[in-house]
């Protein structure tokens, strides 16, 4: 047993974990849906540019859309099949974006195309970063930010520690847990590439204490030549956030408005690391990902390896339901997004699908006035005053929120809303306020020009 470290970040919450339903279930391959729908926006940054045409036959692993610029990634075909049509498809945000409809060959063996392999020992830093972009890799923890951009250490900065994020602090989700148990070799291979790409001297894998088995398994299989330490930290939400993890493990604070590299750290999600270790030696692109499908309404709960682009409706039909579903979330229950339309697809950033029936969803949350109980102040991991911010938001006092109460530091973890006894939708207020402030700032900038 690895010792659980005692150092942690300030505040935070302990929601019920609900991980036992799926954390013992091995990753299973999901079947191919009769139609695969791939939106070109699956990452933060410029949409991928489609390079195939309707009616074209494509192979599994073939490039369908290329990266459009630096902050962008390409898109690969998750199946061998035919491009049925190219037209707008719905996404979880409600926005329609260009997308590709693929019809898999029913009886095909679905072999994957090999690309140009990249050798971790001989490749240069730039070659590895380029290969990571070419593989279409984004943060698989949910953020979907292009990984090669995140790994690029600016010339005036230095990366000392590569921090591998195996925290998975969202309740219900167990994908990273299973990946650590089942894909240790891929993770270590990925770390070889990441060490080279960042120039880091040492590696720390951060794991929460509810995944001791994964930590023990990884410790046993660390290759002798890699400078890896495994740190088990106490369970607390939102420890999976980069800033909180850095504080828990290294006792450093990322400056307000800054990035982990400002304290000489680069953080990479553990599933993303495994994906890099699996894809780069074959020069392949990302075609599938592990998704936890769970929630009280799901019959066959589990961790599934699902082809990117599989329609959500097909996924739910395949796993079956115990009861009529009332709400479906993509991601965890704390930061995940409620789905309004089952015709959206599994995308690169989908870490979980949760389905709740009518019984489990309480929709009669009566909103009371703020009684200044201070529960939110005790929960906020970055020591904001959500109570005060919430009152200011109702009066549109954005300047005061930003200048005196550090609104822009909020990363929307939802801890304040979770604990609020008055059920005030605090984090929603902050989301709206932040986007209004950003819009206003952009407006003033264009006006200035």
């Amino acid at each position: 047993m690895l010792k659980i470290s005692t150092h942690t970040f300030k505040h935070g919450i302990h929601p019920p974990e609900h991980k036992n339903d799926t954390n013992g279930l091995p990753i299973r391959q999901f079947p191919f849906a009769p139609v695969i729908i791939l939106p070109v926006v699956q990452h933060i940054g410029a949409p991928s540019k489609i390079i195939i045409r309707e009616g074209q036959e494509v192979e599994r692993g073939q490039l369908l859309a290329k990266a459009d610029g630096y902050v962008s990634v390409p898109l690969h075909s998750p199946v061998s099949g035919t491009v049925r049509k190219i037209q707008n498809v719905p996404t979880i945000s409600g926005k329609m974006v260009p997308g590709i409809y693929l019809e898999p060959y029913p009886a095909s063996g679905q072999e994957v195309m090999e690309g140009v392999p990249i050798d971790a020992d001989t490749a240069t830093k730039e070659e590895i970063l380029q290969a990571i972009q070419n593989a279409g890799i984004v943060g698989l923890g949910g953020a979907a930010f292009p990984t090669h951009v995140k790994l690029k250490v600016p010339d005036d900065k230095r990366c000392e520690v590569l921090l591998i994020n195996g925290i998975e602090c969202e309740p219900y989700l167990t994908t990273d847990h299973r990946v650590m148990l089942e894909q240790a070799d891929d993770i270590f291979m990925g770390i070889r590439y990441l060490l080279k790409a960042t120039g880091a001297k040492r590696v720390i894998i951060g794991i929460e204490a509810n995944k001791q088995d994964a930590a023990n398994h990884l410790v046993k299989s660390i290759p002798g030549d890699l400078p890896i330490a495994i740190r088990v930290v106490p369970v607390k939400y939102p420890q999976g956030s980069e800033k909180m993890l850095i504080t828990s493990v290294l006792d450093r604070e990322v400056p307000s408005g800054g990035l982990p590299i400002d304290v000489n750290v680069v953080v990479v999600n553990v599933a993303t690391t495994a994906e890099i270790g699996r894809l780069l030696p074959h020069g392949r692109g990302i075609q599938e990902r592990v998704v936890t499908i769970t929630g009280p309404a799901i019959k066959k709960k589990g961790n599934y390896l699902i082809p990117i682009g599989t329609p959500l409706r097909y996924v739910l039909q395949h796993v079956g339901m115990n009861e009529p579903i009332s709400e479906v979330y993509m991601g965890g229950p704390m930061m995940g997004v409620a789905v309004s339309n089952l015709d959206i697809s599994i995308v690169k950033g989908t870490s979980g699908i949760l389905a709740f029936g009518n019984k489990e969803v309480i929709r009669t949350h009566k909103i009371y006035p703020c009684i200044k109980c201070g529960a939110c102040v005790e929960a906020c991991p970055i020591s904001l005053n959500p109570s005060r911010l919430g009152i200011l938001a109702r009066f549109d006092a954005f300047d005061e929120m930003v200048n005196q109460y550090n609104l822009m530091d909020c990363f929307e973890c939802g801890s304040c809303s979770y604990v609020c006894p008055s059920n005030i939708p605090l984090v929603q207020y902050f989301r709206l306020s932040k986007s209004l402030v950003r819009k206003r700032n952009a407006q003033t900038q264009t006006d200035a020009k």
Partner: protein
Amino acid sequence: MLSKTLNISTSPHIRSGTSTSVIMKNVVFALIPIAAYAVYAFGLGALFVLATAVISCVATEHVLCKLSGKESTISDWSAVITGLLLGLTLPPIFPLWMTFLGGIVAIALGKFAFGGLGYNVFNPALVGRAVLQAAFPVAITTWSEVFSDHRFSAISSSVLTLPFYEPVVDGNSGATPLSAFKFDQVSVSISDLAFGLTSGSTGETSAIVIIIGGIYLIVRKMMNWRIPISILGSVYALSGILYLIDNQLYPSPNFMLFSGGLMLGAFFMASDMVGSPITSCGVIIYGVFIGVVVVVIRIWGGLPEGVMYAILLGNALSPQIDKLIKPRVYGTSKSNSKL
């Protein structure tokens, strides 16, 4: 099972489950033994005063909500708390019409004028009591004997005084321990104070019952323990120093702690979340401030008791404390936070 429309909501999709009305209900639960003990100690008069205060507060809240065209907020239980607290600060032989008036003032002026629950600056019950004290200085300092033999068979005529008439003071009025000490230099034993064997307001009798109620709320995480601890601690420390200087002139710290409305005020009125600062550090400043003011008023002021004014002053100070005491935000340097 997939054809039905989906509901959407914003994250987080799970909640801790505590609600404001549950917190308020638990405060009522914690106050009920105190009220029950008050009735046991003072008899029918206390029962009528407490019932009238609660009815008056709840009715005022309901009527004002309806008049302003809003949904009635009596279901959040906060008006019941205000009523109970107001009743507990009044003498057990206080005229009912004055009690009723106090309830109206507490809710209308103490709470509604500021915008309702959560927006009030002062503890509404204390606003009600402060107005009553200014309007009826004699009636509010006329006490009855505790554990009198006929407390359940007879009722003081002052309780049933007709509206707008002055109450007739019965001959049985007893002095409170604090006024006895202040004006006659007579001290009362701590055990009498702890078990409520002394005269006083309905709620300032048994310190033990109050502490049990307070501990219940603290254990259930519905009260910030720092508030009662910092108030009681600072009262004890300051009066202890004075007692060491001159134990003839100044009362013992134990007497200070257990007499008057300090226990009730520290556990149930100063700890009102709305009127107290929001940060842990701010709350301690607030508590110490209240404790110091209590000692200053009791020892050097003209009044025997000062808990009410101390808490009202603390309430007035807490928005300023919140403005000044801000925890350092993650990733900012100390100099950036406006201390």
